[in-house]
């Protein structure tokens, strides 16, 4: 296997996904298969090749540092699960 169950648990935690114990075997198996497929890349020497970050080799565009948008907090919070007084509600973080 290209990846162990313990590594899958660790990576899933980094991705904030709680994989239930009974699904772990299946996930580990499929992810291993995908990593095996991806390993084809290792057959190619790419030492002198520049990575391609953007297909047009374009760099990040910058705009003038000017205010162009208005505050739409209420509109954007209208789709939030829990809001109060303009604030998003989450479980208590600090005791």
């Amino acid at each position, binding site marked *: 296997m290209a990846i162990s169950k313990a590594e899958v648990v660790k990576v899933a935690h980094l991705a904030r996904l*709680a994989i239930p114990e009974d699904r772990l075997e299946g996930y580990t198996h499929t992810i291993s298969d995908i990593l095996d497929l991806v390993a*084809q*890349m290792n057959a190619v020497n790419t030492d002198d090749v520049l990575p*391609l970050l953007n297909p047009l080799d374009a760099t*990040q*565009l910058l705009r003038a540092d000017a205010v162009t948008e208005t505050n739409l907090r209420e509109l954007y919070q209208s789709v939030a699960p829990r809001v109060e007084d303009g604030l998003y509600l*989450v479980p208590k973080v600090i005791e």
Partner: protein
Amino acid sequence: MTVATQGDLSTLTSKELHQLIVNKDISVMELVELFLNRIKQYDPQLNAYITVVQDKARAQAIEVDNKIRSGELNHPLAGVPYALKDLFCTKGILTSCGSKMLSNFISPYDATVYDKLNQAGAVLLGKVNMDEFAMGSSNENSYYGAVANPWDLSRIPGGSSGGSAAAVAAGLAAYSLGSDTGGSVRQPASYCGISSIKPTYGRISRYGMTAYASSLDQCGPMARSAEDMALILQTISGFDVRDSTSANVPVPDYSATLNEPLTGLRIGIPKEFFADGLDADVAKVINEAVEQFKRLGATVKEVSLPNSHLSVAAYYVIAPAEASANLSRFDGVRFGHSCDAPTNLQDLYERSRWEGFGDEVKRRIVIGTYALSSGYYDAYYLKAQKIRRLIKNDFVAAFNDVDVLMGPVTPTTAFKIGEKSDDPIAMYLGDIYTLPISLAGVPAVSIPVGFSDNLPVGLQIIGDYFNEAKLLNVAHSYQQVTDWHRQSPSQFTGA
């Protein structure tokens, strides 16, 4: 001229429908009602639509009818009813991305493409089904269920823009917008016998098009003809200050060059696209299509894309890596699915995400997170980006010798629903002919060129950067001397 039967109208191109409106043979309202009735009658067999916006469509029809009558609106798409893949944000309308995660998400703003189509007077019929967050090749990865292929209801329509392809093929919309990250408009268009174009990366604004893999995603029109695609592409292309990756490159008049003769056109046939794995009957149909181009005056030579076989490997690092970053926004706090009674913040994140995402999305998030994690970045993401450069260089070299490349879109015709749903690797390998184009960022069209066992076969025509006009010219020339693009599944034609 009398108005034809409903079935006949639903098989007309957008250009023809607009002409009927201009000639006052039919009103926009009548046309909208016709499509709404067809959706009601036929969609239960297909499951192409997630949301039908009948009230909005009727209100828009009244407005557009008035504006056309007063001369205020004369856009060539005015009054023509269409559908949007359910990842384009539409204010006040569910934008689910085919996911439980966004099954309660009413977008607070409009995507730029939707805004542009509204200004043109195009009438939105509804939002169509898709693989969850555009991850899939069969439309089976949708929270809203699989979609059937109108040519054979036991088969998949392709993905991820499966609802878009099925809706257009069955005459439940005149055209649709999909999105293409690794083949997601070209492959379903091929399986469903319609035309599609994945433009050059950056050609169309992605503002309001939910991100999957940001260095690959591009919006793509799906329609009945190359002529229609020219009109749609014209309407939605161009630089957008709201999408910093949109290209500041002038948009040519795509319709103006549709009829240029193909005499002297140099076609390259990538030999790697005809190697083992390509179904013999599909190969035969593709070769016949290439012969047709010879008769139109083109010359054909074999070329090589020697690194294209590495596309699947590179894509399944780059796309999941970028997806894992893009999908980190779903936290159960600001929008989307939120789990019940979280015990703490971590539980809120982890359970909301586990419950909200489907299996394929979660697999790709884990793969992507792994590829980007400390100690693995160079071996996976950086390596894949280097391979991507090699793949791009293959195309750059090929276009020194030829004007366009031609080959199949897929190795086979549409497969059965359920056939590959337990085997992600088999599903991934089916994208072998579309992924290289996506990684290079060049444009490609997919047009129907025949059938194998009564299932449509698509030809892929690939062009150099920002040369969409040439691709549309080539596709249109073929469609002037053939009628594959005018064929419709008999089950869905008629009133």
